[in-house]
């Protein structure tokens, strides 16, 4: 089986006044139709990895890689037009906070149809039908009503479901979810994850799930990459999380307070400079 996505030695750096900041420093992985989790703290380069694949890195940043290949297309040499045609159609991305990632001055239904019309030649009627069907697929009970609402009129959980609907309406082969539930309540988180999980399984896509919550990622994905300071420090199958070798991974696992474990004070991460080498 040829992998859907091949990333080899990906590097993203930002020139600043005080020198170059290397956000991603040599990340390599391949992805088939599976769920891959990328975990790390703020600044570990996990989001920039996702954005580089998506082609959303700011213009002044420098991206290099030995290979950055999506289904036979070399993403680094692809033209802007080519990448635009991929983005939203074959590769889609769910962002963290629906409050900021939905267009505030456009009704929800029209935003979903906009995605469709960009990539496919659909009539208005068909667009509307597919958008409504998609809203139903993310378990919105009265899609007709929600279709005409503006983003500020819906709750966070509903907003994130709309975001998922919008991203999946063109049937992408690869979905990148960047902290899709971090802005949501615990109870709503589970609903949204369950919907995402079902759709990913039903429609057979590759998923990259980016989060700082190692436990959440491991319960959701097949395989987990742990990133620190722009590098992958450990790669694990989710089932073997307990067998994590790297002290950083162990630290991430242990720092969460859980019900019934009385650890005062909580173990904190000791970040060793040699991990970043």
């Amino acid at each position, binding site marked *: 089986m040829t992998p859907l996505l091949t990333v080899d030695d990906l590097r993203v750096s930002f020139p600043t006044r005080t020198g170059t900041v290397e956000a991603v420093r040599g990340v390599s992985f391949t992805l088939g139709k599976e769920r891959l989790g990328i975990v790390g*703290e*703020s600044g570990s380069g996990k989001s920039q990895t996702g954005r580089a694949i998506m082609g959303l890195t700011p213009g002044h940043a420098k991206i290099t890689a030995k290979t950055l290949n999506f289904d036979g297309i070399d993403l680094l040499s692809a033209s802007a037009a080519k990448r635009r045609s991929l983005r939203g159609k074959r590769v889609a991305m769910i962002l963290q906070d629906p409050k900021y990632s939905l267009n505030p001055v456009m009704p929800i239904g029209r935003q979903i149809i906009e995605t469709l019309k960009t990539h496919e030649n659909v009539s208005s009627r068909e667009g509307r039908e597919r958008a409504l069907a998609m809203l139903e697929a993310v378990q919105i009970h009265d899609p007709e009503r929600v279709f005409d609402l503006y983003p500020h009129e819906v*709750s*966070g959980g509903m907003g994130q479901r709309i975001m998922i609907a919008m991203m999946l309406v063109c049937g992408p082969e690869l979905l990148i979810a960047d902290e899709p539930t971090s802005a949501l*309540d*615990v*109870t*709503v*988180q*589970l609903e949204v*994850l*369950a919907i995402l*999980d079902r759709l990913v399984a039903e429609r057979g896509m590759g998923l990259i799930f980016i989060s*700082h*919550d*190692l*436990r*959440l990622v491991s*319960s*959701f994905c097949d395989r987990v990459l742990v990133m620190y300071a722009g590098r992958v420090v450990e790669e694990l199958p989710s089932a073997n999380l307990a067998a994590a070798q790297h002290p950083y991974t162990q*630290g*991430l696992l242990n*720092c*969460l*307070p*859980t*019900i*019934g474990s009385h650890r*005062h*004070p*909580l*173990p*904190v*991460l000791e970040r060793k400079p040699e991990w970043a080498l």
Partner: protein
Amino acid sequence: MTREVLSVRDMVVVFDEFVALNGVSMSVAEGESFGLVGESGSGKSTLLRAVAGLNVFESGTLTVSGKRYEGHRRDRDFYRTVQMVFQDPYGSLHPRQTVDRLLLEPLAIHGFTDVDARIARALDEVGLGSGFRFRYSHQLSGGQRQRIAIARALILEPKILLLDEPTSALDASIQAEILNLLEQARKDRGLTFVMVSHDLGVVSHMCDRLAVMRKGEMVETVSVEALEKRAFSQDYTRQLLVASEGFRRT
């Protein structure tokens, strides 16, 4: 029995037509750590803000250290006793003031004289050296900002700290550091905590007792031991508990 320092009886908060808090009561003893959990819109933050005087309450009573308060008017004594730490460290610090200025303000309001020593000590206590004193908040990370917010709350040596989701905007690893810092401060100063969070794991780690809130009402109040033994009566509490255990594929 320990003395009650904070008491709320039948508090009602109404925003226009919407009843945000519908007759909520709680009683917090001195030195206790009390948690409030619930989903968004359950009224847990509203309750905390009504105590702090940031929201007006329509009816009910609020007693802090034996003194009654009404509406949103609070005297200086109140703020010497009660301080608050907010959820979003990016939104709760003045963007154009240095850390020094931020910490000076409460001291100036309350007429402290030994400001220099107090600011230096406050920064030390939250684990930020004096090197941070003349920085702006945008030069700090999220965790460092929250440390500054905690320093600002502690600098007046309050007795009660109101914590509104103090770690939910932070990474899991930074959250552990902030929780440890808060716990240490509570131990050192014998503080009373009222902590709001949607994460049962965090609340059960930090608190002795907790109240579950839903739709502006208190569903039930349980001790953390009872929670661990699953000795609660409400189905909603169980739902929250299941949610806190993480995602399971069904």
